[in-house]
């Protein structure tokens, strides 16, 4: 659905050229829900703006929804939906007017535009708000309207730039659910950018980690965490030294440390290592008081790849 090769964008600023995106390759299949994770300024939005025809790439090529970005930008525009970080509705325009006009911009005749607007309002719980100016909506309501605006023409691909930035936890969860439903009910391919770890983790099938204009890692959230540092296992036992010795023999175990009665070590996959560990400890007649497996967070992944935390700018 999205295929990009060596996509790059340079900006000429008074301070000299800035390489915002330095050669990004993307392969996103139909129906995937993919997240672009990176700190502010990593090149997420620039990449998205190239894929949505808002910015011309300085290098590279891309095919989006079957249309070449350079040769057929209008074809791309017909087939994609785009929801910018700040939305894009006129504050004093009524919700209904904005939805219907947006549908007409995509070529729907007036009657069909009106029924599509009503249908989307229903889907996004906006029916009672149709006559209000968009400025009167709450943050969560406006975000739902923004999503609806991006879907008036039933696009094959929906691009979302930081879809839940600035929303309260309840509205975020609600929006995540709607994005998942969208994929399940309509089969829409969703490509979103986020700098929220939990959003990438909970929502996305696949995460592309971008830093300084390059993709530095990709995979499912679980794969990413596994490939970087593995899981941390913490067990407590009165025979800590003996337990540490057994743990050290597990395949792939490393960084084994003992502190008082606690033994801490890393293994590539804690969930599959645990049964073996328990059996071996039993055979060595080491008694355990407790055992815990900690999955790494995507922040650990980012830290391992770049040496910085995602929260730092």
């Amino acid at each position, binding site marked *: 659905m999205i295929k990009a090769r060596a996509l790059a964008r340079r900006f000429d600023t008074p301070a000299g050229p800035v390489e915002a995106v330095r050669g990004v390759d993307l392969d996103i299949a139909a129906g995937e829900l993919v997240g672009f994770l990176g700190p502010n300024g990593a090149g997420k939005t620039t990449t998205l703006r190239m894929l949505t025809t808002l*910015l011309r790439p300085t290098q590279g090529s891309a095919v989006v929804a079957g249309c070449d970005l350079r040769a057929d930008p*209008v074809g791309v*525009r*017909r087939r994609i939906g*785009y929801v910018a970080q*700040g939305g894009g509705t*006129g504050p004093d325009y009524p919700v209904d007017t904005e939805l219907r*006009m947006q549908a007409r*911009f995509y070529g729907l005749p007036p009657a069909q535009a009106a029924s599509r607007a009503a249908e989307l309002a229903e889907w996004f719980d906006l029916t009672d708000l149709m006559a209000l100016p968009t400025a009167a909506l709450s943050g969560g309501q406006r975000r739902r309207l923004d999503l609806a605006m991006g879907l008036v023409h039933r696009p094959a691909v929906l691009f979302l730039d930081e879809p839940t930035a600035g929303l309260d936890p309840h509205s975020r969860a609600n929006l995540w659910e709607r994005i998942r439903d969208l994929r399940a009910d309509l089969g829409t391919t969703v490509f979103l950018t986020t700098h929220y770890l939990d959003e990438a983790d909970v929502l996305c099938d696949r995460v592309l980690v971008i830093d300084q204009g390059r993709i530095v890692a990709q995979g499912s959230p679980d794969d990413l965490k596994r490939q970087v540092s593995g899981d941390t296992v913490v067990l407590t036992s009165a025979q800590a030294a003996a337990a540490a010795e057994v743990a050290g023999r597990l395949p792939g175990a490393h960084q084994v440390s003992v502190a008082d009665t606690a033994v801490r070590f890393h293994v590539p996959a804690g969930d599959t290592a645990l049964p073996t560990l328990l059996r071996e400890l039993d055979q060595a007649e080491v008694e355990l008081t407790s055992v815990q497996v900690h999955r790494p967070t995507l922040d650990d992944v980012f830290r391992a790849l770049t040496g910085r935390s995602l929260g730092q700018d």
Partner: protein
Amino acid sequence: MRLVSDTWLVFLRSINQVIRNPLSILIGMAQPALYLVLFGPMLTSLAGVAGFPAGSGWQVYVPGLLVQLALMGSGMAGFTVLPDIHTGVAERIRVTPLSRSALLLGRVGQQVAVFTAQAVVLVLAGVLFGLRAPVGGVLLGVLLAVLLSSALAAASFSIALRLPNEYLFAPVSTLLTLLLLLLSGALLPLDLAPGWLRALAAANPVSHVVDAERALFLGHLVSSRTLVGTLVTVALVALCWLWGIRTFRREHR
């Protein structure tokens, strides 16, 4: 044709704003109306003074006011794209398949619609004050002013989108319109001006439009002044529209 239907859609969205705020049309007219009431009577007493052009004072002043209205109204059209840039509306619309030319032309259409309404009211108000002029000439005069307003609106949108930041738009557009206005002879006929000022004004395309407007209001439908002013206006329309379309095609803020 898609350009036409796309232009119509962009026009509809832009005019929606005006329809919901009808007061904005009246407020936009306040300035020229004030000139008509508070400045016009002084000018009419000048009629007959040596060097003052032919016709009654109102026949000289109302056509000038039409051009002034175009400058003060459509010349400031760029202000209406600035909020659309802020709110992301401009960007959202640029991701739709709408023709880029339609993004300009639909907005120009909205400005022209508002201007036409204001121009008609202004001329009728002029009649109340004592304007007497041949109907055909007045109608052609309004048409010429409408064309000028479309060129000024396109130029104003281009300036708003091309300036590096929005805070520059107010001073730049005010300066430009004031310069075009003072050197057009719309306020006081240039026949009263010294030679150097007239030479400067001759370089201002808008002064030729004002000349043509005054000729039309005297009923001179075919005269060298009418011809030159019309050609200048058509050239302005072509250049400003092309510039505007180029502006809307490129990436901008």
